[in-house]
Structure formats: structure tokens, C-alpha cells
């Protein structure tokens, strides 16, 4: 077993600013200065907001509003009946005009159940229940408040925060991720510069819940201002340590950041908590502070609108559900600067092209990127792999992208899994360095989706088999029971015939005689009938 650095060794290296490194990684052009020069702007309310019922990993909450209802800003639209359900809230006041399928913030461009609210412009607020004395409250109460506020990880994965915070294992390092390693995106950067104090409050709450030995706030060294403000905000606490991490993509990946800070590696089928670490995004900390101290749900977030096709790249406070079109207008989008409409949600490495400008901002939307015609040239036709192994050198998870590519392309999924396809974090570093311009991550995503589907089908067929067998057994049982019943009834009949000797037999004979007589009489009448008619 590989020995990992222990707590003291790690703290020593961190205090010396002598961090570890993760394998691979790339250095794409940053382009962050496009959008990080101005404050986070407050923008006009959109006329409608589209709030998808599910914006996290898990299941839908239960809808508690109906069409025609008037809702206030912050009013819950769904409740969390199941621990994997995270509620969503009205992000402004208005009337629910539709609860129907609306195009979702998903690469497929398919529709999902969405609550559409027509805004009344008043933005009148729902009554919140603050919990400023959280230090006296029980852990369960705080977690309940976090869940009710609808918080799911805002770094990108959207895992329900209350599940992660409800941890019982010992935590050595609570890591706050302010890395933001993807080019163009500056939403966390601006948030840290302007709201360091509230992020700090969120971290305090997490510390109260998780009792970590040490808090590490990791910020890439290309954000000196954010590093400065966070250091000032955290200076009173002895066990809070703001760490400068060398800029390299994807240093912000959960596993990569843990490796840089602690040299520990998250096991392939394990979680960071197995090696004593837990990670939260700075945006999530900000939202936790809002949720607990003010009782305010997650209804807005910072979104970077950037790219050379907008005149005013900036960060804005966008209400959840704001159509992308509204944000683009705010940043003065010029479609003529693009050769064809191309709007990307997320960054240039891991984002996806949107199919419609009506797609809403969701809890994990950190960036809207609109590149000019020549800014982010589309990948042309891929060429053959030349086996240069540049992808393997760039892979931050030490995988063999080439092998996974062959097997994924040939649909040899078992072999692809043998090369640990599911440890791929889809960061795109391999595709970035590929001289043949092979969109490697596409193949991995396709293969992963196919494998998941196959597993689902396998489970379903297993269930069908069990039900089929159960039904067969039941039918057999019923048949036997029926036969048994018939047999018993026949026996009972026989017995009752024999019991009172000849009496019953006589009765039957008498009944037969009566029936015979009746029939004879009827026939006689029938014969008489024609004559009586005449």
C-alpha cells in the first residue's frame, strides 16, 4: 500500500509553500482579464424565469405550486421528500404561468420539467427564517436549513450539499476550492474579491458541522487580489490557511487539488472523505452563509459573460432561471462577430454548446462564453491517431487516453473499463494537446453513457426475471389451491350424500320426478296451443 503524507508533513510543506503536483495538466491561454476587471453587476430582472425542477444530481423534489399561483421571491416551488431531492425556489416574485417541459441546460438540448414564472417586477420577498445563532443549534437543524435552501455544489457537479455536510467520518482537511482553473471564467475570482467575508462565514458554518483539523482555502496564483482578500478575511483563525496553488489546468479538479495539497490520492472507487478530505466550492460557501445566517435560499449566482463576441464582458448576479438571452443582451452580444450563433455554457474546456438562447441559468452555471469567429476555432475533421502519446502525458488522472479511445470507438466497453474509463474526469486536457484533433472526451462521454445504459438495462431485465418467476409461482399456487378446493368440495358433497343414508338420494329422485312431470305438462300444453289459437 502506498504511504501517504501524514497531517504534520502536509502542514509543514504547506507552510513552506512547497506543494506537491499532479501528473499531466496543460496551460491554455487564460483570457481571464476579459471579464475580471469590473465589479459583479446587478442587472435588470428578466420578464420571465424558467426554473427547472431538477438542477442537481439526485431526484426531483415534489411540486407544491400550480399554474396560476402567485409566488414571492425565495418561495419554495418544490419540497424535498427524499434526501436526494433538493428543492428549487422562485427567484423573483410573479405568477406561475406554466409548469411544463422547457429546453434544459444540458448538452442534449432536450426538455425537462420546468416552472415558468412571469415576473411582476416588484421582487417582493418571501419571509425567511434566519438562524444567526447557528453555533447553538444542532447539526441536524443546520443541515435541514442548508437542504431547504436548495444548495447543491456550485463548482459544476451539483451534488446536494446537505448530503456532503452530513458526514460522520473524521475530517483532517476541509478544502475550499477557489481555484477556478478553466480559462475565461472569473465568477469565483470576483466573488472572493468582493465577498470574502461572507465566504468566510460559510466556512465557519462548515467547520461547525464538520470539525476539521485544518481548513485549506486554495486559490490559483493567477488571482493575487482574491488571495489577498481571502487572507485578510481569514487571518483571525489559526486553523484557516489560504494556499497559493500554481496555475495549471485542471488544478481545480477535486482529485487533482487534493493531490496538490496533500499528496493523497482519492481511491478509484472511493471518495475524498476516505482519505480525510472534504471539498467545497467558494460559491457554495457563500450560499451556505446566506442559507443559514439569513435563511435565504439559493436563487441567484455569479455568472461570467465573456468572449470576444460581447462588447461588455462582465460578471453578473443572475437569478436562477434567467434566460441566457437576457444575459447576452446585458453584455451587448453582437451575433455578427460570430460566423454562426455559438453560445457555450461553462468554459472552453468542459463546457457545452447551447441549442437555444431560452435555456435558463441553473445552479451550476458559472459562465456563458460567446467566442468571436476566430477565437475558438471549431475542431475540424479528426485525423488518425499517430500514437504520439501526448494525451497520456497531459492526463491529470494518469490514464491512457489512447487505449480508452480505441476501445470506446470500437464499443469494446469492457476493455475500456479495464483502462479505468470511469476515472476520467472529462477535463479535456487530452483533446487539447492532441495533434490529430481527435475529440477524445466525446468518445469517453459516449462510452460512459452507453455503459450506464447497459447496466440499467441489465438491472431492469433482472427485475423482470424475478417478477416473471414470482408470477409463475403464484399462478401455480393458485392452480393447486383451486384444485384442492374442488377436491374438498367434491368430497364434502359425497359425504353429505352418504351421511343421511338414503334420504338425500330420495330427495334427488323426488326432484327429478317433479322436473319430469313439469316437462311433460309443458309439452302437453304446447300441443294444445295451436288448436286454442284457432
Amino acid at each position: 500500500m502506498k504511504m501517504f503524507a501524514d497531517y504534520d508533513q502536509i502542514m509543514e510543506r504547506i507552510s513552506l509553500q512547497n506543494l506537491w503536483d499532479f501528473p499531466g495538466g496543460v496551460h491554455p491561454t487564460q483570457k481571464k482579464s476579459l471579464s475580471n476587471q469590473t465589479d459583479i453587476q446587478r442587472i435588470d430582472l428578466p420578464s420571465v424565469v424558467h426554473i427547472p425542477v431538477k438542477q442537481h444530481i439526485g431526484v426531483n423534489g415534489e411540486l407544491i405550486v400550480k399554474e396560476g399561483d402567485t409566488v414571492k421571491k425565495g418561495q419554495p416551488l418544490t419540497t424535498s421528500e427524499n434526501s436526494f431531492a433538493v428543492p428549487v425556489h422562485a427567484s423573483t416574485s410573479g405568477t406561475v404561468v406554466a409548469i411544463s417541459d422547457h429546453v434544459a441546460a444540458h448538452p442534449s438540448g432536450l426538455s425537462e420539467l420546468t416552472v415558468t414564472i412571469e415576473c411582476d417586477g416588484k421582487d417582493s420577498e418571501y419571509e425567511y427564517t434566519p438562524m444567526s445563532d447557528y453555533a447553538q443549534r444542532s447539526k441536524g437543524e443546520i443541515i435541514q436549513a442548508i437542504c431547504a435552501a436548495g444548495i447543491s455544489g456550485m463548482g459544476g457537479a451539483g451534488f446536494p450539499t446537505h448530503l456532503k455536510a452530513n458526514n460522520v467520518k473524521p475530517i483532517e482537511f476541509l478544502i475550499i476550492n477557489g481555484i477556478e482553473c478553466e480559462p475565461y471564467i472569473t465568477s469565483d475570482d470576483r466573488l472572493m474579491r468582493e465577498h470574502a467575508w461572507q465566504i468566510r462565514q460559510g466556512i465557519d458554518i462548515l467547520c461547525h458541522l464538520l470539525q476539521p483539523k485544518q481548513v485549506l482555502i486554495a486559490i490559483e496564483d493567477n488571482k493575487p487580489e482574491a488571495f489577498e482578500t481571502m487572507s485578510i478575511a481569514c487571518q483571525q483563525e489559526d486553523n484557516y490557511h489560504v494556499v497559493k496553488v500554481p496555475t495549471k489546468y485542471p488544478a481545480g479538479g477535486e482529485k487533482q487539488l487534493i493531490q496538490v495539497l496533500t499528496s493523497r490520492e482519492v481511491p478509484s472507487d472511493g471518495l475524498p472523505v476516505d482519505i480525510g478530505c472534504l471539498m467545497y466550492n467558494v460559491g457554495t460557501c457563500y450560499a451556505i452563509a446566506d442559507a443559514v445566517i439569513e435563511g435565504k435560499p439559493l436563487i441567484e449566482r455569479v455568472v461570467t459573460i465573456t468572449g470576444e463576441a460581447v462588447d461588455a464582458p462582465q460578471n453578473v448576479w443572475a437569478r436562477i432561471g434567467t434566460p441566457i438571452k437576457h444575459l447576452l443582451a446585458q453584455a451587448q452580444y453582437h451575433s455578427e462577430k460570430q460566423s454562426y450563433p455559438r453560445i457555450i455554457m461553462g468554459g472552453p474546456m468542459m463546457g457545452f454548446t447551447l441549442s437555444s438562447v431560452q435555456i435558463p441559468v441553473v445552479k451550476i452555471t458559472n459562465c456563458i462564453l460567446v467566442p468571436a469567429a476566430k477565437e475558438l476555432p471549431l475542431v475540424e475533421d479528426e485525423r488518425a491517431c499517430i500514437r504520439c502519446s501526448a494525451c497520456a502525458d497531459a492526463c491529470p488522472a494518469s490514464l491512457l487516453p489512447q487505449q480508452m479511445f480505441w476501445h470506446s470507438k470500437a464499443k469494446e466497453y469492457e476493455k475500456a473499463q479495464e483502462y479505468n474509463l470511469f476515472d476520467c474526469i472529462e477535463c479535456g486536457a487530452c483533446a487539447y494537446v492532441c495533434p490529430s484533433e481527435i475529440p477524445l472526451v466525446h468518445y469517453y462521454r459516449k462510452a460512459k453513457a452507453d455503459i450506464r445504459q447497459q447496466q440499467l438495462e441489465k438491472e431492469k431485465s433482472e427485475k423482470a426475471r424475478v417478477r416473471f418467476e414470482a408470477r409463475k409461482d403464484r399462478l401455480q399456487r393458485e392452480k393447486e389451491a383451486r384444485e384442492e378446493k374442488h377436491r374438498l368440495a367434491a368430497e364434502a358433497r359425497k359425504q353429505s350424500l352418504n351421511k343421511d343414508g338414503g334420504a338425500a338420494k330420495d330427495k334427488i329422485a323426488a326432484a327429478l320426478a317433479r322436473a319430469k312431470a313439469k316437462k311433460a305438462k309443458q309439452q302437453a300444453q304446447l300441443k294444445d296451443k295451436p288448436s286454442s289459437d284457432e
Partner: protein
Amino acid sequence: MTLTLIAILVVVLIALVFGALLGFASIRFKVESDPLVEQIDNLLPQTQCGQCGYPGCRPYAEAIANGDEINKCPPGGEATIKDLSELMGVEAKPLDAAHGVEDVKKVAFIREAECIGCTKCIQACPVDAILGAAKQMHTVIIDECTGCDLCVDPCPVDCIDMVPLHDSSENWQWNFKQVSVGDIPLRQL
């Protein structure tokens, strides 16, 4: 003469000993069912639709084990035929069109307003995926339905449709040939 007798005796003795041994083993180490049938059954899609001509997947698995053709399962399609051919060591043949063609995944849907509550579909369903009672409206439990089609014919008022499972973002298969989506790696400058 005695030598021949001894030889015969020895052979008979050996035969008896081994016979007893085999007899004992066949009782002591009895395998409940044919493991090959289990393996084949595992590969079949368990729709229990009977399109192969057998009353369910397991009977068809037994038939295959006894030498029947492996290309009679339309719901499993080419993928199942490929898996079966590997298991059985026979050549993969195209699907036998006499038993139907491969189709998209479907589930039964009862137009509830038209249902008269006759329970005929409930009796036909091989996996008990239809809920209802006599003179009460019936409905299909979508998660349990295998899309076998067997409930459609018995319905006296034709209120059952087979509808394709709709694509959702959860089961979407990253088909980037249709639409231009997915990641767009920043090119090295």
C-alpha cells in the same frame, strides 16, 4: 480358465465400485438445474414476450441449450445474438425476421378514459406490471413494463398503445453526430 474368471471378476468389481461412486456423486453433488441454461437466460433480455415461440425467456434458454437457433429474439437484437454466439460457440446469424424485427424500446400505455376494467390485460402481463381490478381502471407501472406487447391483443376496446420511451437528459447517449454539442477544447495557440 480361473485367470479369465478372476479377470472378469476384477473388472466387474471395479465397475461396481465406480458405479457406486458415480451413483453417490450424482446424488451428493446434484446440480439443481443446467448451468448452461442459467448462462443463456442471463443473456436474454427478460422481456418475456414470447416472440421466439416459447412462453418466456427461460423456456427459450432451455431450447437453445437443446440446440435451437439463437436468432429468434427480436427485443435482444443483434447484441444478444452476438453474446449468445460467443457463449455457444456458434456462428452469429442475422435476426430471424419470422419472429419480428428489432425495434426501439417501448412501454405499454393504457388510455385510461377508455378502459372498461375487464382485467384481460392484467392476466396477460407476464411480469405483473399492470395495476387494476375488475370494473376498475387499469394502468401500467412504467418501471416494471418490459414492452412485450402481450397486453395489446387481449384488450377488447383497444385502449393500449405501445409508446416509445422518450429520451430524457438522463438516458441521453451523447449523439454528437446529430447535433453540434459537447466540449470544444480550446486550441493550442
